[in-house]
């Protein structure tokens, strides 16, 4: 019965020898069958016993993260063997720490070296560029000056004449101009230029040249574009000002010799130094790469190891320390069926650690409510997940997950019913299921893909049910198939051209065009062609969803009855379950009855007097029975009487649910009241006695941690009453609102069918309407958008929305 109820759980006490504790927890952790209770809930994280170890693990994790970042930076593939190393022994931890420490230091050193070298390299390259660019500035300037002076004396005269003496002086002094050369970020240049102009009142001359190749920033490793500039100015005051501005804009200044010969010499020096640096840099990078490649091989395994160590110490932190410090005491929940395996693991671990005293696992009697444990497998875990997302059932309550396995895809298919889309979905899921192992191995980080992959079984079932629903709705990409022969046939004589005459459409009359051989499986294909398809399908799908919905609600209530039976809760059974069922049946069960009755009893000859069920239901609540119009009058004898009775029953059910249970509980409690307290007191002492015995007398047992005080459940009438009234109101309103919300089955199914039909008519039909080769070409061209739209809109979007709605309905 693995999935139907939570497994039977037992609270166990663990006595672990301190030297074996680590190994024991490691074994238990690999097994994953025990849930430990925190025995020191009021001790904060820093006061616990193994806080140091946890901290060391944190430190190791930090180092590993650092290494991983470096590895990623260098784009070295990390080897993921997928094997699962055992948790290392505590002494191995020191080795690990040492290894990481060494690696980290090495990395840091290499990085620091590389950074220094890079900075050096950058400076040299910048200098090289400066020398090269300034060379051209100077040459230009000289040439320009010569050129101007030699070839155009008239111009020089003019210049002279215009500027007068001042111009002359300026020209003379220009030869003794000071200059500063440097490099600046390209994007800072305009601001820099403006600042210079303003600060120096336009008395400086800036020349610039862009460096073509982007340079690498040694700190961040990003590529930056820079510009060489050279500033000419006059006088020391301006010089200091310019230098300050350069500093402010974080431009780097380089010394630049004045004479061309010196410049050439310097350039040669720089070039050789750059060459040297390059070789050194290459060696450093090689070294770094080697270290990282070595680390990349092991990093995943290290991660797992460190995680395991950390988890073990975390668990050990939840343990109580014995007074003699020799023994750790912990409590855990584990499934009764797995107790043997846990015991075995403990034995194995004790042997392993070479401890002489065995570790002991005791079952304890408790009144605490155990945690819920549903054993799942690959297939069922998805459904369990869906159910748990809404709420985890309390211990040993009926688990709705196994029923969800079918009901969820079924409801989905009601909305998604289309054979074509269902097939695509089914095949996709089938592919994932068949390739499961391969896909699992190729772990993907893509969240969306993982979501689909995790839900592959649910998608498989949803696809299968959608195919079924599609056949019943007779929808394949919004087209119908006529397998069994339609029940409708327009008579040659009655529907001849003379009869139809000038009308564009003809409505077939069920009395003469329907041959009483109802289409045996699914919708009659004639409706796909009909103009009034939607009114017909609406009425059908609405009724369908109401019937399915009410059945499911009834099923849910019956599940709750199974709970009551299991817990031998007679009060709840008679005063909660029975009125609930009666309430549901007297209103909504009756509605289903009416629906079926209308389908069977009214045929086309009586279509005029066929009742409108909605009106009838409303009238039933209003207790009004009008005689006009005909569709609202009673349609069977005694209807008024039956409906009044049903309504009365439903109304009676409400106080039945509301009042009886709390009152009975109170009476019961009052009767037992005094007896239980003394009884409980005795059980506590006996339990203590047992525990002392089981502790073998060696170790004084710590006081049983305030468990028994919590166990005693206080009863207060007011609380029970409030609880019950909330429950009742929720149920009654829930019935109505859920019925209404099941109508979304209809709405979504309608929307889906319409969308796919529109898609067909608007897109694919374009191709079909053309004749000859043009048509073929058009079909070819149109197929791609049609298929793409089908997959994206209909499959993915509609699928998701239907999925969400199904989810909503299950809650």
């Amino acid at each position, binding site marked *: 019965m693995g*999935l139907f109820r939570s497994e039977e759980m037992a609270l166990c006490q663990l006595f672990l020898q301190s030297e074996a504790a680590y190994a024991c927890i490691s074994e238990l952790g690999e097994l994953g069958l025990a849930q430990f209770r925190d025995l020191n809930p009021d001790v904060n994280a820093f006061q616990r016993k193994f806080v140091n170890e946890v901290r060391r693990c944190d430190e190791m994790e930090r180092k590993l993260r650092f290494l991983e970042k470096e590895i990623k930076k260098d784009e070295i593939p990390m080897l993921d063997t997928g094997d699962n190393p055992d948790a290392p022994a505590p002494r191995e931890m020191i080795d690990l720490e040492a290894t990481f420490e060494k690696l980290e230091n090495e990395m840091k050193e290499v990085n620091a070296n590389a950074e220094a070298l890079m900075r050096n390299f950058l400076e040299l390259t910048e200098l090289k560029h400066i020398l090269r660019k300034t060379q051209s500035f100077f040459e230009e300037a000289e040439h320009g000056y010569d050129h101007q002076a030699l070839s155009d004396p008239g111009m020089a005269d003019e210049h002279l004449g215009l500027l007068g003496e001042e111009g002359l002086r300026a020209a003379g002094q220009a030869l003794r101009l000071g200059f500063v050369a440097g490099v600046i970020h390209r994007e800072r240049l305009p601001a820099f230029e403006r600042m210079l102009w303003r600060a120096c009142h336009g008395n400086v001359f800036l020349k610039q040249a862009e460096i073509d190749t982007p340079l690498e920033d040694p700190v961040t490793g990003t590529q930056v574009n820079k510009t060489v500039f050279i500033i000419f100015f006059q006088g020391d005051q301006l010089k200091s000002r310019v230098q300050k501005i350069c500093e402010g804009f974080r431009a780097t200044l380089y010394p630049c010799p004045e004479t061309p010969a010196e410049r050439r010499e310097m350039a040669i020096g720089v070039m050789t130094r750059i060459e040297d640096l390059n070789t050194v840099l290459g060696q450093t990078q090689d070294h770094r790469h080697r270290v990282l490649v070595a680390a990349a091989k092991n990093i995943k395994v290290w991660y797992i190891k460190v995680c395991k160590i950390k988890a073990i110490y975390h668990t050990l932190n939840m343990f109580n320390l014995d007074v003699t410090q020799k023994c750790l005491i912990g409590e855990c929940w584990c499934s009764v069926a797995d107790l043997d395996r846990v015991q075995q693991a403990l034995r194995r671990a004790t042997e392993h650690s070479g401890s002489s005293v065995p570790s002991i696992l005791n079952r304890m009697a408790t009144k605490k409510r155990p945690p819920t444990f549903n054993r799942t497998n690959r297939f069922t875990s998805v459904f369990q997940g869906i159910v748990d997302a809404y709420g985890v059932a309390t211990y040993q309550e009926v688990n709705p997950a*196994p029923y969800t396995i079918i009901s969820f895809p079924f409801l989905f298919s009601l909305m998604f019913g289309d054979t074509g889309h269902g097939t695509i979905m089914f095949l996709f899921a089938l592919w994932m299921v068949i390739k499961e192992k391969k896909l699992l191995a190729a772990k993907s980080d893509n969240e969306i893909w993982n979501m689909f992959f995790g839900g592959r079984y649910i998608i498989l079932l949803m696809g299968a049910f959608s195919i079924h629903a599609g056949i019943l709705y007779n929808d394949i990409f919004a087209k119908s198939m006529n397998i069994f022969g339609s029940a409708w046939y327009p008579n040659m004589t009655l529907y001849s051209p003379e009869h139809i005459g000038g009308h564009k459409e003809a409505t077939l009359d069920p009395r003469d065009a329907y041959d009483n051989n109802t289409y045996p499986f699914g919708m009659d294909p004639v409706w796909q062609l009909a103009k009034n398809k939607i009114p017909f399908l609406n009425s059908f799908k609405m009724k369908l969803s109401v019937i399915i919905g009410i059945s499911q609600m009834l099923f849910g209530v019956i599940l709750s009855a199974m709970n009551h039976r299991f817990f031998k809760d007679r009060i709840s059974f008679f005063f909660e379950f029975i009125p609930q069922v009666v309430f549901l049946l007297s209103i909504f069960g009756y509605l289903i009855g009416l629906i079926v009755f209308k389908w069977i009893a*009214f045929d086309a000859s009586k279509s005029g007097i066929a009742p409108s069920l909605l009106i009838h239901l409303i009238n039933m609540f209003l207790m009004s029975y009008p005689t006009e119009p005909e569709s609202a009058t009673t349609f069977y004898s005694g209807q008024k009487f039956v409906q009044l009775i049903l309504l009365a029953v439903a109304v009676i059910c409400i106080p039945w649910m509301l009042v009886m249970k709390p009152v009975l509980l109170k009476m019961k409690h009052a009767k037992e009241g005094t007896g239980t307290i003394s009884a409980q007191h005795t059980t506590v002492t006996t339990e203590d006695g047992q525990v002392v015995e089981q502790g073998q007398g060696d170790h004084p047992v710590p006081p049983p941690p305030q468990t028994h005080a919590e166990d005693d459940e206080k009863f207060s009438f007011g609380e029970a009453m409030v609880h019950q009234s909330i429950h009742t109101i929720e149920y009654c309103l829930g019935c109505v609102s859920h019925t209404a919300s099941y109508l979304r089955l209809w709405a979504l199914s309608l929307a889906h069918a319409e969308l796919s039909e529109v898609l067909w008519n608007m897109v694919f039909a374009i191709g079909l309407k053309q004749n000859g080769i043009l048509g073929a070409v058009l079909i070819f061209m149109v197929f791609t958008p049609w298929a793409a739209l089908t997959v994206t809109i209909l499959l993915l979007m509609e699928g998701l929305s239907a999925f969400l709605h199904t989810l909503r309905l299950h809650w």
Partner: protein
Amino acid sequence: MGILIPIIVMTLFWGLIGLIGPFIIPKGPNRWVVQVMIVMTCVCCWLFWAITFLAQLNPLFGPMLEKKVVYLMQDVWKP
């Protein structure tokens, strides 16, 4: 084809699967789950089919068809 034949066939089909299926599942830890699945499938599918069938049993109105569709039907679906 009368209306009885489909009713009998479909009910028998799902009924047989639902009644016999659970007994032929091999024993194993998941036997219960598979049994529940089979029974639920049968009940759901039968219910779905039954509703679809009943809804069309006595149509209150007929399909409204375009003229050319009527003529085409007379031609193609000739009994």
